């Protein structure tokens, strides 16, 4: 494997008195879609939030592109080249879609070519460009959340359950957007509960259990082994 874009070694994260991450090991290869899977409450979201710096790892290290970002403040981590799409989408409801996008273009004005590309990926954004983001539907908000992370080129995208609660047609749009992002050379760490999506997008997979990495390997390996799925996640992908 070439040098990974992101590497977590022995990461422990506590939230108040709760020990959520207990020695997480994770490697995200360059230019691939890496899935982070597991049951609810095993620490997937906490892992992403620890990488972006919303929670602090009190032990272990987070290396991004050869740089130790474990103790960097969140804005510095983001500017180092990591885009983040949180589970709750993090939309600024009182700002218009346009204002959300202007804000996301951290380094200056919006690149028009990239915006036009995003309009072809997510046409709803162009339709509701001047509307308050709070008035969008759940699916449109999710599109905006991902588009906001994509408006500037980032080396790594952390995306937390982008298809949660969405209609099948919108899930297809999301999956296509993530594929296009990968084709452009970006690396993606994706938390996903929808196994069909995980199977379609993932190159490699990491399954968490109880704050630790229970299994890491190729996505194809996991999809072919029903017994492994049953053991790691308590259910088989064939059920989906």
């Amino acid at each position, binding site marked *: 494997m070439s040098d990974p874009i992101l590497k977590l070694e022995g990461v422990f994260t506590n939230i108040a008195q709760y020990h959520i991450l207990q020695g997480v090991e994770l490697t995200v290869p360059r230019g691939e879609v890496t899935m982070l899977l597991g049951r609810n409450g095993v620490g997937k979201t906490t892992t992403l939030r620890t990488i*972006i710096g919303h929670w602090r790892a009190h032990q272990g290290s987070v290396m991004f592109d050869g740089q130790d970002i474990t103790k960097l403040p*969140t804005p510095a981590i*983001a500017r180092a080249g990591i885009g983040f799409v949180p589970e709750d989408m993090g939309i600024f409801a009182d*700002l218009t879609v346009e204002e959300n996008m202007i*804000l996301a273009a*951290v380094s200056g004005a919006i690149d028009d070519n990239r915006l036009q590309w995003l309009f072809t990926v997510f046409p709803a954004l162009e339709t509701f460009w001047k509307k308050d983001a709070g008035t969008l539907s759940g699916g449109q908000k999710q599109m905006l959340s991902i588009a906001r992370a994509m408006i500037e080129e980032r080396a790594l995208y952390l995306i937390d359950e982008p298809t949660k609660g969405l209609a099948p047609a919108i899930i297809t749009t999301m999956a296509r957007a993530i594929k296009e992002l990968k084709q452009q050379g970006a690396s993606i760490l994706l938390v996903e509960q929808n196994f069909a999506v995980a199977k379609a997008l993932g190159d490699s997979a990491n399954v968490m259990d109880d704050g630790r990495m229970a299994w890491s390997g190729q996505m194809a390996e996991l999809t072919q082994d029903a017994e492994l799925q049953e053991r790691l996640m308590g259910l088989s992908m064939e059920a989906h």
Partner: protein
Amino acid sequence: MSAAPKHAPTMAQMSLAERLAPYAPILLVVGLVIAGFVAIPATSSWLTLTVSGLAMGMMIFIMASGLTLVFGLMDVINFGHGAFVSVGAFVGVSFLLLLEHMTGAPNLLWNLTALMVAIVGAMAATGLMGYAFERVIVKPVYGHHLKQILVTMGGLIVVEQLIIVLWGPEEIYITRPEALKGAITFAGAALEKYRLVAVAIGLVVFLAMRYTLRRTKIGLIVRAGVENGEMVQALGYNLRMVFIGVFVAGSALAGLGGVLWGLYQEVITAHMGNQTMILVFIVVIIGGLGSVEGCFIGALMVGLLQNYVAFLEPKAALISNIALMVAILMWRPMGMIPVVKAK
């Protein structure tokens, strides 16, 4: 690159009630003015009271606008905000006393120039003081409301005592610049010149703040930060630096409010800032934490109601604003234009 399916949603016209809902707070102000017109027998009295109420509202807005952003952006309860009002008034009045030759001349241009110098001086002093206040007093207590209340109250007391040390314990009586004394007559109503100036300055401040918040990137960062600070940081913006900037600007605005309020009352004391804080907090709460527009509309309502009720039933003036706050919170528990969601 593949294209997504054609997006052609059906757009439906909203009902009249839905379209009017966002304008309900401003319609309340209009309703209050109309109610005042109906209740006050003489039109000239109504006009005088309305201008007086608007002037008072504008000054409260100037003092409250910084506080609401500080509240909204970093969840900081600053009970020491009144200190900036007092210091602004004392610094501003000191400048006016130094420029007595300009304020005493019956020349509007000279008077306004002196007033501007006093305002700039007061804003610079309170802005610097705001920076020190944030670094020394507020910074150690982020995230702890009770400590914030205690320590900012302590800061207020220290500043009030420092004012007494520097300017003496006596209240200072001041006269307004010569050309701003007296009133002009319009439609049979006497409109105090100074109040008209206060209305004009308040409008300029509101429009400048609105422009900054709506049309500039720093304004977008502030508005987004009020709503979801964590996400603003995840986009790559250092919200702490933005907050310090807002704290300094809010302190400077409180200083401006102090100069205007001092000239309005024609007397200044070390405790004047603390005394105005009751109205300021009422305005911040009914406007909706973090909302500059809500703060503006709330301030106008408080100013107008206070003046109308004081004319109609002086004994009820004291409770009218509390009653207004209760009524608004029963209607919209998060304030008229809620920005910050319940935490």
